[in-house]
Every structure is written in C-alpha cells, then in structure tokens.
C-alpha cells in the first residue's frame, strides 16, 4: 500500500512538472528584423531537442516581391504571395535569412510561419514570429 501511495505522488508530481516544463521544451521560434528600408532578416532560434527539418513560410504584402534571399527560398507561391524555405539538417543554435525586396517594406507587414515536427510527439507544430 505504501508503494502504491508513493508512486501516485511521483506520478502527480511528474505530470505537474511536465505540464510546467512543456512550453520550454525544444522548439523553433523566430523574429523578423528590419535591416534597412528594403532588407529584412528572419532570425531563427533553434533550441534542443531540435527537429532536423523546418519549413519557413513568409507571407508577403501585395506588390512586394523578393529580389534576393540568402539562403535562397525553396519555392515561391506567387498567387498566394508566399515564399517558403525548406531547411534540412538543422542543429540547435541560430540561423538568419536575409531578404531583399523590390520596394520598401515595413517588417510589421511581414509574417513568418515556422512549421516543423515536434521531436517527442511527432506532431506538426506551427509557430509564428
């Protein structure tokens, strides 16, 4: 009976700590910074345990086109005004995507979505900047 009680306490405490810790588990997040009128940087932060692959989707305002990007985008969906980067073999740390647009852009007009598979659950996670 003692064993049963002890294990219940352990189980409850484990669940509680897991619930509290879950937002801090390995993930991908990012922010968009303005470098100058026509250049923005998507700063990506990867914390362990990191997935190996992430898709970053950048929503573009109407009339805005990407003139150059480093690294280059993997695909451009003109109609949907989206550019996507498929980043593979990523490791914990930081990663920057430098983008030059055809005209002045306020970063507040830009939206980035980070899509990846959660390492522990295997479920798709979507995070926005």
């Amino acid at each position, binding site marked *: *009976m003692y*064993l*049963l009680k002890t*294990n219940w306490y352990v189980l409850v405490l484990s669940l509680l700590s897991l619930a509290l810790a879950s937002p801090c588990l390995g993930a991908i997040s990012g922010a968009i910074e303005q470098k100058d009128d026509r250049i923005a940087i998507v700063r990506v932060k990867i914390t362990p345990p990191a*997935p*190996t*692959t992430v*898709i970053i989707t950048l929503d573009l305002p109407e009339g805005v086109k990407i003139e150059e990007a480093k690294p280059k985008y*993997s*695909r451009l*969906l*003109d*109609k949907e005004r989206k550019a*996507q980067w*498929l980043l*593979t*073999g990523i490791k914990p740390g930081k990663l920057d995507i430098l983008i030059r647009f055809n005209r002045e852009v306020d970063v507040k007009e830009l939206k980035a979505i980070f*899509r*990846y*598979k959660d390492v522990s659950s*295997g479920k*798709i996670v979507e995070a926005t900047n």
Partner: protein
Amino acid sequence: MEPSLPQTVRLDSEKIRRIREERGLTQLYVATVVGVTIDTISRWENKRYPSVKRENALKLAETLEVDVQEILEQPDDSKQDESTSKEEQPKEKTQPPEDKEPKEEADKGGRNILLILLWAIGLLGAGILAGYLIFKPSPFSLEVNAARFLPAYCAKGSLFPVLIRIDISPEDKRTVLIKEDIPRTLKITKAVPPYTSLEKGLLKWIYQGQTTNLKFVYIARMPQSIKEYKTLRFRGTVTIKTNQTVSVTIGGNSQITAAPFNWADKNGDNRIDDEEILDAYELLSGVKGMSSLLKEVETLWAAGQYRWDERAKRFVPEKIAHE
C-alpha cells in the same frame, strides 16, 4: 502438433553442426535465437550426446528449420514412438479442475450476503494489488518497442524506403536480431546498416552494442510486373538477448500498394504537401545514402504537384496551374 518429449533430451551433436553449416548459420545467430550463449552452442556441437532441456531442443530445431526428432539421439525409433503415444494419452484426458465453491456459496448466499461481499471486496483488492505489483515496470526489466515505417504507395519499378525503429531500455550491452519477412518479388537496392543475410525473402540483421534507439533502413524496388493497386505485406520480429531474451513483433505499417504515387505522398493526391515532406525528412534524417530519394521528394514538393510518367518510368514535377 508439438512432439511429446521428456523434460531432458539428448542431442545428436554431429547432426546439429552439419545442419547449421548447411543452412549457413553462425553459432552467434543460433545462440541468439535459442537464447543461450555461443559457448553453449559450441558445447552442444562438440560433446557426443549432450543432454539439454526440452524447450531448448525445440527452439534449436525451429532455428535450424527441422523437426525436433531430426536433431535428437535416436537409439531405437520404434520404442520412442510407443513412449510418445503413451505420454500423449493422459494429457488429453486431463481436465482443469472446476472451482465450484463460489457458485455453491452464491446459491446459499442469501443467508450471509455481507460475508460474501466482504470476501469479494477483499479478493478484488488483492487482485488489483497483485496486478499492480506484477505489471509495474521494474527499472531492471527489458522494454522493447519496434515499429516499421512503410510508405502507403509506390509506383511500379520505382524505389521506396522502409525504416525499422527499435527503442530498447535500459541501456546495456546486448545482441539484437531483426528478422524482416518481405515479399520475395522485391529487390533490395540498399540497406543501412548492411543486412547480415537475405534469403528467400527473409532479411536479417544482427546487431551487438548498447544503443537504446536503433534504426534499420532499406530501400526496395517495387516490381515492374506487379498488378496496379496490388498490396504487398511485410512482417517481422525483433529478438533481444541480454541476461534475458525478449522477442517482439515489429508494429507499425505492414503493407504497401503499387500505385502511381511517390512514396512520400501519403494520401496519393499527386502533391507532396508540407507535412509529407517534413515526414520524409524526419524519417530518413541521419541515414546515409538517402539523399537522392529525398532530393526527388523535394523537387516534387517545390513544383506543387507531379504525375507519374509511365513511359519514362519516373515522376514528373508539374507547376500548379494557378501559380
């Protein structure tokens, strides 16, 4: 039907060695499957007529793919047959004793319901406690989980990957035997790590080490001659030997359909969507020699949609019309 044998039997050591060598099996392989050490197998093969437990003789016969009688010392076959048939008779007649007490108590139970109720509650409590103690995971018990990741579709004549992931705990030095029964019409073009043997559609790996997460990947080619939408089935087992031997069936996906879709296209809609490409990369990440398979998937994803070119025997990327 299982042959009726005494608790201990004597093996024919020469026969064992000969059959094992004919089958091209190593002592390590046989030891792993039977669940004994290599030294034991060596002893069985070198002593003249070693005595072994009946269970071990049966496992050995199964491993060597022969009838158990074939590997036993047989001084006189006719006597053996007589004793066998005699031994079988009492077994058939034996019936498990019926426990009539609870029923009788229930019939008379009107008089003392409280006592029966208390007895039942006590029994239930004892059962729950016993179940908890029995099934409570012990920190020392070996836990094994094996799963197969097999695509839903693959076009005729094209390649697809299969991954077997094995999670074992706790960390310890061990021998792992993986047996994967694949359709004989499939051609394996690559395996990472390389397989130990492949014979009559039975793919085998033997791994020794203490890693807790193992990945075994192979690339197979869907036969060109297969009928469209025909399904192929896979099955397999993983046997792990440390101080105890545990054998589990490989779970996960077990069938693939011959259809004009890329292996990464799970729903067969001629598009590789974001989730499907993430799945493909997560599946094969860190596995050497998979880049060409992944590159093809990436090209199809980037294009938006694709079709299978039957004449060229390859997938052709196509831009979505509205883009």
